[in-house]
């Protein structure tokens, strides 16, 4: 299972906090994004934006990273803490 977590405006757009995907093997982030766009059409316009960062297991990940069973993926809009 891969757990995808949505935050801030992405959570509002997706209308959910979490989405889980059962995978048979490792999945490239690009493939995961395609699945997300299909399931959450409202995210299509922003998922490829350079201002959306992606974390894997709570560490920043590069765009060509690979996700595997048990991983937690975070979709992180621009931060506004402080």
């Amino acid at each position: 299972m891969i757990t995808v977590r949505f935050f801030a405006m992405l959570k509002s757009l997706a209308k959910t906090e979490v989405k889980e995907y059962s995978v048979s093997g490792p999945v490239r982030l690009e493939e995961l994004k395609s699945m997300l766009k299909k399931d959450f059409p409202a995210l299509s316009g922003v998922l490829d934006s350079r201002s959306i960062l992606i974390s894997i297991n709570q560490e920043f990940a590069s765009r060509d990273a690979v996700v595997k069973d048990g991983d937690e993926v975070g979709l992180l809009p621009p931060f506004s803490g402080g």
Partner: protein
Amino acid sequence: MKTKSSVLVKIQEKGFSVGEVVESVKAASKGIGAVVTFLGAARDFSKGSVITGLDFEHYPGMAEKKLIDIRERALKNFDIIEMAIVHRTGKIEIGEDIVVIAAASAHRNDAFMACEWAITELKRTTPIWKRETTKSGEVWVSETP
């Protein structure tokens, strides 16, 4: 180190006392001559809009990890003795405190530099998001669009 971080670095719903945070870093050493503190507060006006309230969301676990990381990098890269970081989450009223960073050092320049670096790094790397309530509704803020 882990114990210390968990006392000096916190994300919490409740308010904090600036005085207590300053005391927590001062307690580290009698060699401290300077404590520089940054306090972020909820303004009533931002980018042309009247703000009536704020609501902060964070990525539990990752946000704490990033703050601990900022403290550890500050201790490594600046000549400071201690640093504390407390950030609130959830609903915050106008005028209330949002975040405090206290940097303690022997000499003031090091504390000023470390404190300013830490708040900039917090805004850049910590998964915390602010939602502003304005007359036209609630909007998520993107400081770095």
